[in-house]
């Protein structure tokens, strides 16, 4: 999977035609084969762009910062990224006519050690759902399967689960990299940053981390698209996907097989109300 040349050509054309102000893509770090997001504002810098299986970061995240706000943006999205973009469109956070989306039929990306990411192996929607232009061969329809980690977690029992997550939260340093790298966390002021509120615990303690991460995961319940930006961003390598995958499973099983952002105009599970919704569980 290497679309470096095509993406450079597309970006170059868009700048030449004056269709975009900024192009969000990936460039090499300069010292190894890993990549960093880059915001190109001039046609002469287009040669920096690359795309291959190391293009891990979800670029939809950059639509919330001042560099792209109120600008015409060109953007590269993989399958999972496009689901988060779909949600942002539904939630009126970005305007579709301001975006030029280059969709990728993604074959899966790899981590820093070169192993295929776990979420890519379980990916149900590898092809970009929102796109003005597609690169790659589309995949056949896949069936959603419950994550094996969640099965293991569920088999542990309440007490063991609590012990396990206490260990996780103890290693959290509350840098909020998870929240800032999440494309769907776009609130200008997050509720867990309210310093004076007694409802939320602002101190950098284990109980504060518990409070922050649980609140965060519940705000993403029914919206998380499993791009794992948060987990890749976490400096302590915490298994944050467990929180989201747990919610995803509960929602899939109870809300008519709902998966976030897979249709245009699709809303998060909790935005919809139906008389058929069950109320016999606590998430």
């Amino acid at each position, binding site marked *: 999977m290497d679309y470096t040349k095509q993406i450079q050509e597309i970006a170059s054309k868009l700048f030449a035609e004056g269709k975009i102000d900024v192009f969000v893509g990936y460039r090499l770090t300069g010292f190894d084969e890993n990549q960093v997001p880059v*915001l190109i504002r001039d046609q002469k810098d287009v040669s920096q762009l690359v795309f291959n299986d190391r293009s891990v970061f979800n670029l939809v995240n950059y639509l919330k910062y001042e560099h792209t706000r109120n600008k015409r943006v060109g953007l590269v999205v993989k399958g999972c990224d496009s689901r988060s973009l779909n949600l942002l469109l539904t939630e009126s956070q970005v305007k579709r006519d301001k975006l030029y989306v280059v969709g990728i039929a993604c074959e899966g990306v790899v981590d820093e050690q070169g192993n295929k990411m776990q979420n890519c192996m379980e990916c149900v929607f590898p092809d970009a759902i929102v796109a003005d232009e597609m690169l790659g061969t589309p995949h056949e329809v896949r069936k959603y399967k419950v994550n094996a980690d969640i099965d293991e977690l569920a088999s542990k029992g309440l007490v063991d689960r609590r012990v396990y997550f206490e260990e996780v939260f103890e290693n959290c340093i509350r840098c909020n990299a998870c929240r*800032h790298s999440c494309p769907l966390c776009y609130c200008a002021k997050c509720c867990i940053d309210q310093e004076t509120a007694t409802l939320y615990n602002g101190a950098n303690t284990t109980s504060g981390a518990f409070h922050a991460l649980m609140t965060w995961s519940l705000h993403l319940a029914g919206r998380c698209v499993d791009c794992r930006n948060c987990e890749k*961003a976490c400096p302590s*390598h915490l298994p944050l996907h467990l929180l989201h995958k747990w919610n995803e499973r509960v929602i899939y099983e109870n809300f008519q097989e709902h998966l976030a952002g897979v249709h245009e105009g699709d809303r998060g599970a909790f935005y919809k109300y139906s008389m058929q919704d069950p109320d016999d569980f606590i998430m």
Partner: protein
Amino acid sequence: MNVEIFVTDKAGLQKFYEAIIARNETWAPVEKFGKFDFKRVSSLGECDPDSPIATTRSAKPLFFPRSAKIMKYTADSTGTRVKETDEDPFTAKRVILGMKHCDARSLQVLDKVYNWDYIDNDYQKRRQNTVVISTRCDKAETHCFCTSLDYDVENLDAMDVLIVNGTEGKVHITARTEKGDAFLKENLDPASCILHPVSDEELKKQYQAFAASFRLKMNYKEINEKLSKIFDSPEFEDVSANCISCNTCAFVCPTCHCFKISDERVKDTGVRYKSYDSCNNGYFTLMAGGHNPRPVKYRRWRQRALHKFVYYKERFGENLCVGCGKCAVSCPVNISIFEVVNQVASNEVV
């Protein structure tokens, strides 16, 4: 101080570590979720003091914890009463194993700010009661640039005991301070070591090989000078474009020392905490009334870079960066402070 170099082998070093852990409260790098961090250990099997992978966070949390209790209080209709806090878990007598040189150096940098206009008693107590044992790295990692900064890595005296790996599996152990000397007398079994009088030839050789392994090199004087003139450079906007404004770099940084005060309160009783904060936060400079002098990302980024290489230098005569590269290792989007300051400085506006 009369410098004695003890020479032992790997097995002797393991015994030395075991003796330390058996006799003292010991903190050492422990692996969790694939990353190393300093944790309290009770046996050598739990930890890896010689781990070539640097800890994610530095040893800073042991001296400036991510959250420290300042006070406890009760507040109800009859008034507010302040109570004594529990004993600080970090002020006990302890030993830290496996600190890298950059971490040890960062303590010297922090000492300056904690001994400045306000003397932080908790910090002083934590420092006095700690014996720092530092192992010199054999090879630089991708983001390391400690040799490019304003301290002498080879003759660093920030640690109490220095351990250097020599050739043929030999290990050199030497005290660097009076405290370290007394500690070695107490904990090192002389029967397992040969006492070398002066010959530090091998140490020099090891250092040269280490210094040659660096990918990143810069002239810090040039950077200090150039950065001090380019406050208005538009380059800051470009280099910070892909920053996502999280606090990771500041929280893992061994020298960043900003904090915030927050309460954890249940009904009438509460605890007041001093926790990490970072200038990358949008609300860091937010004032009562709503004015924010650093409302956009690039201004906050500029503050961080200039504080490291200009402002701190002006006040204390040192850089607020020890070249450990922890920020670049942990950054979600791989921004390296080394690259950024060099890029900004190279585009100096005349």
